[in-house]
């Protein structure tokens, strides 16, 4: 099965925490299977074993043997549970402390919305805030402290290859430290039921070498560059005069909407609508015109634009790299 090694599996860890939990999971599954078969074996023998005629009446030892067996089984179960508790505790300790705050921890604020993810990189040195949506880029080998918040209902961040879940709860700020050991794209579907489009609310965690991350970061924190060619320039005017700026921001233009994803570097992202469709020109056009057909119930209204305006708008949006 191809997806056994896929980008959203507990059993294909890409981080020390996920690796520790995967080892725990494999141990649990093996242990559980062994106990299951053992109990079923005893059960099968207990009903299938050959019986002598009238043995119950003549053989007092039967009751005694039952007592011994049940007591031994109970004692063993208690010991095994204690052992499991210990294994669980040491894994928990390992996961919790392995990557606590270090000096070069990257701080990222992750804010849940119905049904998309707002991402803000916090830097003590730079007052400029890097805002993006539905994608977190992280440098390989460096701890990333996620601060988890929600603007509406409860969501949950879960990149199974990297770590377990942590909820985004309105009124609370959660914290989760993740770290990727190898480059890769790890899918993080929302893991707390959050309403109509819970199924289509995925985040991509993109782990890349430090140099690549630095390049991405430098580009992403800059404002959008004013387009050079006339079609794209006209598209920018379409963006600013249509309904778009009420909700969206493209840094470097007069748009300042905050209720929807920041589009400053839209073209650099891999997906649209929180992991729902690929970020290609045609898909983008379809999304702008008919977002309710693609993701019914989401907050984006359909946009009726003349064909030429739509083409110009797309010409502009694809330049936002």
């Amino acid at each position: 099965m191809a997806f056994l090694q896929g980008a959203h599996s507990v059993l294909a860890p890409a981080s020390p925490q996920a690796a520790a939990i995967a080892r725990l999971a494999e141990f649990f599954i093996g242990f559980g299977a062994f106990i299951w078969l053992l109990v079923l074996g005893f059960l099968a023998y207990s009903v299938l074993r050959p019986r002598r005629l009238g043995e119950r009446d003549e053989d007092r030892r039967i009751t005694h043997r039952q007592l011994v067996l049940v007591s031994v089984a109970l004692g063993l179960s208690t010991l095994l549970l204690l052992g499991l508790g210990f294994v669980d505790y040491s894994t928990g300790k390992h996961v919790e402390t392995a990557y606590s705050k270090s000096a070069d921890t990257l701080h990222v604020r992750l804010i849940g919305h119905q049904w998309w993810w707002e991402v803000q990189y916090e830097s003590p040195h730079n007052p400029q805030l890097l805002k993006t949506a539905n994608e977190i880029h992280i440098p390989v080998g460096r701890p990333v402290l996620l601060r988890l918040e929600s603007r509406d209902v409860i969501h949950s961040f879960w990149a199974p290859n990297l770590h377990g879940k942590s909820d985004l709860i309105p009124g609370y700020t959660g914290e989760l430290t993740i770290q990727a050991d190898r480059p890769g794209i790890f899918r993080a579907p929302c893991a707390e039921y959050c309403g109509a489009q819970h199924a289509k609310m995925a985040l991509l965690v993109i782990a890349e070498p430090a140099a690549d991350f630095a390049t991405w970061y430098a580009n992403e924190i800059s404002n959008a560059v004013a387009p050079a060619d006339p079609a794209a320039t006209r598209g920018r005017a379409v963006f600013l005069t249509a309904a778009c700026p009420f909700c969206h921001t493209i840094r470097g233009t007069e748009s300042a909407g905050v209720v929807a994803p920041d589009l400053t570097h839209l073209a650099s992202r891999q997906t649209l609508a929180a992991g729902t469709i690929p970020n290609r020109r045609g898909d983008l056009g379809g999304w702008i015109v008919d977002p309710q057909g693609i993701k019914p119930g989401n907050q984006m209204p359909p946009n009726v634009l003349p064909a030429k305006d739509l083409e110009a708008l797309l010409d502009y949006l694809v330049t936002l790299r």
Partner: protein
Amino acid sequence: MTSAVDEHAVLANTWGTPRGPLGWLTSVDHKSVGLRFIGTALFFLALGGVLALTMRTQLARPETHLLTPQLYNQFFSMHGTTMMFLFAVPAMMGLGIYLVPLMIGTRNVIFPRLLAYAYWVYLIGGLFLYSGLVTGNGAPAGWFSYTPLSETQFDPTKGSDIWAQTITFTEISMMAVAVTLIVTILKQRAPGMSLNRIPLFVWSILVTSFMVVFAMTTIATASFFLAADRLINTRFFDDARGGDALLWQHLFWLFGHPEVYIIFLPATGIVSHLVTTFSRRPMFGYTPIVFATIATGIISFGVWVHHMFATGLPQLGLGFYTASSLIVTIPTAIQLFCWIATLWSGQPQWRVPLLFVLGFFFILVRGGLTGVMLASVPFDLQAHDTYFVVGHLHDVLIGGAVFPLMGALLYWYPKATGRMPSEVAGRWAFGLLFIGQNLTFLPMHLLGLHGMPRRVYTYLASTGWGGLNLLETVGAYILALGVLVTVANLIVSRFTGPRAGNDPWGADTLEWATTSPPPPGNFAEIPVVMSRDPNWDPARPEDRPVVTGLPLDRRELLFTSALDATPVRRIELPGPTIWSLPAALGTAVGLIMLIFTPWGLVVGTLLAVPPLVVWAWPKHGGSA
């Protein structure tokens, strides 16, 4: 001196119910009310099953659009609510209502009119939930209705109101049943049935009833808070205005985890009886099983936070709930080992109910072990809210409760109808249910570990989840076929099954000492109990000691002491009444109106109280 035949006729007349539709509306006989609970619960099982099959059909392939996202979400919310509140608990309690008086040797429950009221409230509440679905107001926020998703801001429909009030309906109903059964079990046991001779099913119902009283109090508080938030803008769960979204989760799971054991414990009681009867052996470890049942009931109130490991609570606190969640498996292990020991030393009879017991072991032990895994915080953080948990909970609830329930329906069927169910159809049903259950829910564990979250109405083809989902959908249809065969068996055998006689299985408890079906007053004479297995008493039934001296022409019976069941006094029970029904209707009108206006409280009270007064009016102008 009247003859025995005349005595039976007098007794039947005293305890009987009027014939025809009037009798149907006025009956307070625990047997008919219990069967109604079971029948209605099976009806809701069918509805919940149809919802499940529709969802499975949608999930069979990636990106299919049989249901809109909104409708799919309502379907899984309604499925969970139906199975937990409208099927599983009422079915188990219904079995308790039917069996408890027969097993403890009495003629009816202590509050028969309250029981009739409880049934009507339950029926109306269940239908009310589905009236929401057909009017586009199905519950949209899951069977757990987490705030703030279930608050007005995010659910402007009436769906969450209807959900909260349905919960209120079932709370009222189950509380009434629980109180009735507790008092009946503690005060109406046949003389001689001391605490250490109570049948294990009755023990399980006693513990479950106490759990219902405490757990339903919690959910009643929670659902009231939610309804108040939605109706009159209280701010219990609104973080923006001083409330707390997490409070709901604590209240809900403080009820929600005991709820699982409210369903599971009666099933363990059933298994104890099936194991005893079909291994021809008194239960090994009766006392440990009783203590295990009580311990489970208590510990189950201390594990709720394991549903909340991902909410960011402090690590040390979580450790406590890991420990309690591991400890709660020990009493269940005790029961498992005692059942195996009993089968070991007995002579297994390969009848259909025993097959269901073996299926129960196969699936429940697996579900229990995955439950132990989920008690671990690191593992749970990965598995939580994925299909792993869906697989686990259906193993525990279907394997742990539905299999025993199916076994129980076939086992006590001859008692209730006087006819034997078909053995062949029973074997077919078992085979289909067993294969269907494993095919549907075993692959889910794997899917969860491969990243499939719960409560998604569809998934992308690129996730690679399509193959296993298709397999699960095939399994779900096989499972449904198994339920259909069982129900068909129950219906057809009513007419074609061979006559059962009093005791077709050769069982040990008192319900098998009377006729099948039992007469209106259950027993010709109230038995005196000398042992834990009164029907295995070597004395011939007609030679066993009985209670004499109770008048036959009044609904009179013995109150006995709670510990030793020594006779204390005579009491008289009330007879059939129509007034339970208007009282329930008044309650329903009030609760439904409360969705729209606070005046529902006033109107409901005005409508429900007069019937309550009439029903409780003393018949003889004084105490009975």
